[in-house]
C-alpha cells in the first residue's frame, strides 16, 4: 500500500514554496516507515487513481484565471475528497480559488469552486509578516508567514483559529483561515507543514486512518522537529508572542 500525496498545480501555484508541503508530508511518512509518493498534478489527466492527501499552494494574481480553469476540471474530485475526508491543505490564492469567489481590487470578481465557505475580498494594503494562530481542534499554535492582498469573509463560523500575531482573515475578525472537516484553507504560506509538525501529523494520521495504516512518527521525525521547534521559538519571539500562549 503506497500513500499518494497530490501536489496540485505546482508550477502555477508555488510562489512561496507552498508546494513543498507535499514533500514534507512524504518525508514524514517515509520516516514513519511508510511507502509514499508525491504526484504533481498540472492537468486533470495527471490525476492518480488513489489520492490520500492534497496540497494546493499560492500563486500570483496573474495566474488566477489559468489555475481556476484547471481546477474546474477537478471540481468533482475536490468535492468528493472534501466529503470523504481526504485531508486537503490550500494556501493563499489556492485557498481563495476553492472558496465561493474572489473579489479583485479593480471591481472584477472570479467565481470560486465553492469547496470552502466564504470569499476573498480586497483589503487596504498588503498583509505581509509573521502570522501566529491559536488553532482549535487540537492543532495548538500555528506559526508562519503571511503575504496576501485580500481579506477573507464568511469563515467566521469555522476558522482555523484565533490570531495572536498578524492579520489573518482581517476585517476585524481576529481569525485566521477556514476549516471544513479535513479541508483547511490558510494564509500561512511556505513550508507551513514543516514549521508546524502537529498539523502535518494530523493530516498524515487522517490519511493513514482512511487507508487502514498506522502512523507513528519515526526517529528522524523527532530529530527534524527539533529544528522546527527552534525555528518556531525564534519566530514567536520576533512576533512578540510568548511560546506558552497556548
Amino acid at each position, binding site marked *: 500500500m503506497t500513500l499518494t500525496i497530490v501536489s496540485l498545480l505546482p508550477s502555477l501555484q*508555488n*510562489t*512561496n*514554496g*507552498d*508546494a*513543498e508541503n507535499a*514533500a*514534507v508530508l512524504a*518525508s514524514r511518512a517515509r520516516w514513519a516507515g511508510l511507502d509514499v509518493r508525491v504526484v504533481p498534478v498540472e492537468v486533470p489527466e495527471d490525476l492518480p487513481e488513489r489520492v490520500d492527501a492534497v496540497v494546493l499552494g499560492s*500563486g*500570483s*494574481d*496573474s495566474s488566477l484565471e489559468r489555475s481556476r480553469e484547471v481546477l474546474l476540471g477537478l471540481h468533482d474530485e475536490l468535492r468528493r475528497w472534501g466529503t470523504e475526508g481526504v485531508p486537503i491543505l490550500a494556501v493563499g490564492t489556492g485557498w481563495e480559488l476553492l472558496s465561493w469567489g474572489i473579489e479583485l481590487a479593480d471591481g472584477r470578481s472570479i467565481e470560486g469552486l465553492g469547496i470552502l465557505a466564504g470569499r476573498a475580498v480586497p483589503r487596504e494594503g*498588503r498583509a*505581509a*509578516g509573521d502570522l501566529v494562530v491559536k488553532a482549535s481542534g487540537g492543532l495548538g499554535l500555528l506559526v508562519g*508567514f503571511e*503575504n496576501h*492582498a485580500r481579506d477573507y469573509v464568511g469563515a467566521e463560523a469555522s476558522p482555523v483559529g484565533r490570531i495572536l500575531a498578524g492579520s489573518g482573515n482581517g476585517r476585524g475578525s481576529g481569525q485566521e483561515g477556514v476549516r471544513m472537516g479535513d479541508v483547511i484553507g490558510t494564509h500561512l*504560506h*511556505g*513550508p507551513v507543514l*514543516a*514549521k508546524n509538525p502537529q498539523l502535518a501529523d494530523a493530516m498524515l494520521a487522517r490519511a493513514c486512518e482512511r487507508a487502514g495504516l498506522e502512523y507513528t512518527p519515526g526517529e528522524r521525525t523527532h*530529530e*527534524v522537529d527539533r*529544528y*522546527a521547534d*527552534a*525555528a518556531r*521559538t*525564534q519566530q514567536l519571539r520576533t512576533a512578540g508572542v510568548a511560546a506558552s500562549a497556548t
Partner: protein
Amino acid sequence: MKYAPAILVGRLTRIAARLRKPGGGSAVPGLVVNTIAPGYLRTTLSGFPHGLVVVSGSSGKSTTTKMLVAILRAHGESVFTNPSTANISQGLTSALLEQADWRGRVPGDVAVLEMDEGHGARVMEGVDARIVTLTNVMVDQIDRFHDSDMVAGMLAKIAARAHGSVVVNADDAYLERIAAGLGDGVAIRRFGVAPEVLAAAPRGLGHTETSPERLDRSAGVVVASVDGASAVLADAGRDLAIGLPARGTHYAVDAAAAYSTARAVLGEQFDPEVAARALSSIPAVFGRGERVSVRGQEVDFVLVQNPASYQLNVDSIAPGTEQILFAIGSDVRDPSYFWPTDASSLGRVSIVSGSKADEAALMLAYDGVGIDRVEHDLGRALDDFLAAPAPATGVKTIVFTADAMRRTRTHLGLTGAE
C-alpha cells in the same frame, strides 16, 4: 552654481560621517543633499553627454553593470558608475557626491547605474535614461516583492523612462511582455541563450516564466555555448570567445546583456574584439565562487542571493565536499521562497549558522542533508570552522546570504572589492 551650497553641506556631512565611522561609506550625505536639494539627483543624472544607462532586474545586475562599465572604459569612454551597495536614491546621491566638483558637476561621458528594482521606479521619476537594460524576473525577497507580477510592474516603470533603447533578456517571458508594451520610437535589443545552453541547464535558468522560444541569432546577441568559466557569444554572424569571472551560465548571460548594451551605447564605435577582451579581464567577484586564503586555510566562498543563484551555486559545489559552513542571515526575512530549491547534493553540512540558522537547518533537513551542528553565533561558527584541520579532499566551503557575507568579511577582516 545652483547646487554649490547643498554640495558643501553634503561634503561636510561626509567628513563628519567618516570621523564617526572611519572607512564607512555612508548614505547619510546623500540623504542630506536629497533633502535640501531635491532636484540634484535628477538634474545630475540627466546631465551626462552620452546619456544615462540603467541596469535593473531581479538577479545579475551587479555583474552586468561591472561588465558593461569595463567594455565602455575599454573603448575609451569616461564612465560614472555606482557601487552595487548604492543602488537606491540616498546611496546614489552619496556616490555622485564622491565624484562631484564644488558645483555638483560629476565628470564622465556616460553614467551606468545599477538600479534596485524596488526603488528604481521612484528614483527614475523625472529622469530620462538613454538606455534601460533588464536582466530577468525571478522570485526574490517575497517579503519585499510579493510576487513576480509586482517586480515586472516595477521594471516596466523603469523601462518606460528609456528614450533610446531597452535591452531585454529574450528568455524571460515577463521582460518580453514589457518590451511589447513599450512605445514607438524606442529600439528593442535582445540577448538570450541558444537552445543547447538551455538544455544543458537541468533546472533551467531560474526565470519565473521562461519564454517558449529561443532568440534567433539574427535577432540579437546569443550565448552560443558555455564551458566552465568560458563562453561563446554569437553576434551579427560572428562567434566571440570570452572568459567569465566564474563558472556558470548566468555569468555568460550577464556578459551577453553587457555586450548588447555596450553596442547600443557606442553604436558605430563599438568593437566586438575590444568588448570580448574587456569581458575576459573581469576579475572574480567576492563571494561568487571565489577561493580565498584565510587563516592559513583555502576557503571557497559561495554567495546565494535568490532561489535561482542558490540552486546554481549549490549545484556547483562538488559532491562529497567534506566541510561546509552554511549561513543564512537577517537579509532573508522569510525563507519560504528558498524551499523549492534542492540542496540534497551537499550531503552533509558541518555547521549551520546565521540569524536564520534554525530555519536553514529545517530546510536542509527536509532536503535530506545531514547537519553536524547548529551554531547561532556566526563569529564562533567561523572560528571553529576555520580552526578545524583542512579536509582530506576538496576545500572548505562557506555558503552564505548577503548579510551573512558582510558579517563574515567583517569578522575575518577581509576587505576588497564588493
